């Protein structure tokens, strides 16, 4: 179990590093730009000049997929970073200051948000704030806050009963210090694991919402919107639909393996 865990962690981490490198070094890896149109070369299949073919405006698909690695992961990571910080803060506060109006309000809010299918809630928010990368990250982040909130709250409730917390309280330490110095380091690990898994799910959500048209507007090489435009050419240019989807899948596998790898490599083997 631990061996496969470590393997997963290694492979997943490798995938993520690969994507990060590709995103940073995009100009070095691609011969054409993601926006360069050449209408005479439109809808050509994979070949020497264009490794993955060209789209309906003659743009190089390979370049667009590579440059897309700068968009979707960034949105997903930003969303989860926001959700991690906000959710942990809300959850810890709710778990520490028990039995009060604040806790009741926070819990009610978390439960209410969790009672919505996440993608619908995100769609509703996007309908209000409008399309775009930043709005998308914000919407996905907001939708992911309750999961972290619940997790942080559950663990804080357990930590609060521990003796070292009681001791800190007895010595007169301020609640803020207790939360940051004592509770937070002990609940960090499961939160990080959840963050990794959530980032994978956020990539899928970002791609899905871009597919629906509420993501970064064209001509941005976002994988989801590339898949959306590829629909019209499914019969004549099927390769347009394959590469962006594979890019998404591999990235999400990477995030999932990192999260699962951490869990599995720490588990004590059963005798």
């Amino acid at each position, binding site marked *: 179990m631990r061996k496969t865990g470590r393997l997963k962690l290694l492979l997943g981490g490798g995938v993520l590093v690969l994507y990060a490198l590709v995103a940073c070094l995009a100009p070095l890896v691609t011969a054409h730009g993601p926006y360069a149109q050449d209408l005479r070369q439109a809808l050509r299949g994979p070949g020497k000049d264009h490794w993955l073919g060209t789209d309906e405006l003659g743009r190089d698909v390979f370049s667009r997929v590579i440059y897309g690695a700068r968009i979707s992961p960034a949105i997903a990571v930003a969303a989860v970073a926001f959700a991690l910080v906000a959710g942990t803060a809300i959850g810890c506060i709710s778990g520490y200051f028990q039995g009060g109006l604040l806790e009741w309000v926070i819990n009610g809010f978390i439960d209410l948000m969790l009672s919505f*299918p996440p993608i619908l809630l995100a769609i509703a928010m996007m309908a209000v704030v409008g399309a775009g990368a930043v709005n998308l990250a914000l919407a996905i982040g907001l939708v992911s806050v309750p999961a972290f909130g619940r997790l942080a709250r559950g663990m804080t409730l357990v930590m609060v009963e521990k003796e070292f917390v009681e001791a800190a309280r007895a010595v007169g330490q301020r609640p803020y210090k207790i939360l940051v110095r004592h509770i937070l380091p002990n609940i960090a690990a499961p939160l990080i694991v959840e963050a990794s898994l959530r980032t994978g799910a956020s990539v899928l959500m970002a791609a899905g919402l871009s597919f629906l048209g509420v993501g970064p507007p064209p001509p941005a090489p976002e994988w*989801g919107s590339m898949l959306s435009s590829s629909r019209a050419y499914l019969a004549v240019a099927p390769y347009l639909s394959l590469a962006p989807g594979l890019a998404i899948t591999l990235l999400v596998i990477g995030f999932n393996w990192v999260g699962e790898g951490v869990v599995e490599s720490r588990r004590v083997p059963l005798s």
Partner: protein
Amino acid sequence: MLGAVVRRLARLLATLIGLTVIVFLLMNLVPGDPARLAAGMAASQEMVDKMREELRLDQPLAVRYMHFLANAVRGDLGRSWVSHQPIGREVFNRWAATLQLALFSTVLVCVFGLAMGVACAIRPGGWLAGGLRMLSTIGVSVASFWLGLVLILTLSVRLGWFPSIGKAGLSSFVLPALSVALYGVGVTARQTETALAEALLSNYIRTAWAKGLPQRAVIFKHALKNALIPVVTVLGLQFGYLMGSSVVVEVVFAWPGLGRWIAEAIAYRDLPVVQGGLIVLGATFVVLNFIVDLCYTWLDPRIRLH
């Protein structure tokens, strides 16, 4: 026992009301003048003013919410700003289409997810288990709308086995349901494997082995029954999740469902449809979770006897 059910029902009601409040508030935060949007860009100032009266826009938000809620429970969800027709009936028809797809998908999730999970738990070290686990990982990592596109490409355009779009007959359910279900299959397979593997290690199973019971009886009659408790919860949640996340698949397959209608309405700024659709789908999700919660309590005797 009855007190717990009543409390749960009260919570359900509160959640449903909270849901309508949130959706109503969100829709009223959308920029733009609702009266102008409802009357249409070509409408005269007179018509816009008339629409303003009809929508009661000069009245406070709370009053408008009350009117909306009173109408909604009677099935009147307002008129589309595009077609100017009442949307209640259409919402119901589309909701039914989404529900049917979700049901079909849930059946797939049950059959394949459980089968895969059991297979992995029975023979954990084998190559079958390894392959199935990889399949689960891929299942939860693949974008459902991309899978839909790939399935259309291979099984519909190339091979012609299934229709590409629309809802017409049983065969048109297959590709959309597969696209939607794969994620749930992955989740269920993992959940089943974990739960069953754990159950197989417990004392009462060891007793069954020691008693000399045949392998099939031990696994299916004893271990699986108890392992199914968390799995059923996951399955129930999957059904609700499927209803919401089928939006993108509905778009890919031009499925006449509620999710796709909402997505289109957002593009057209047809807010009553977005509002009504979100509330209906959200409410379905909430009620489904509530039922799953009740079933879970009923299924697990340890909880019941508390």
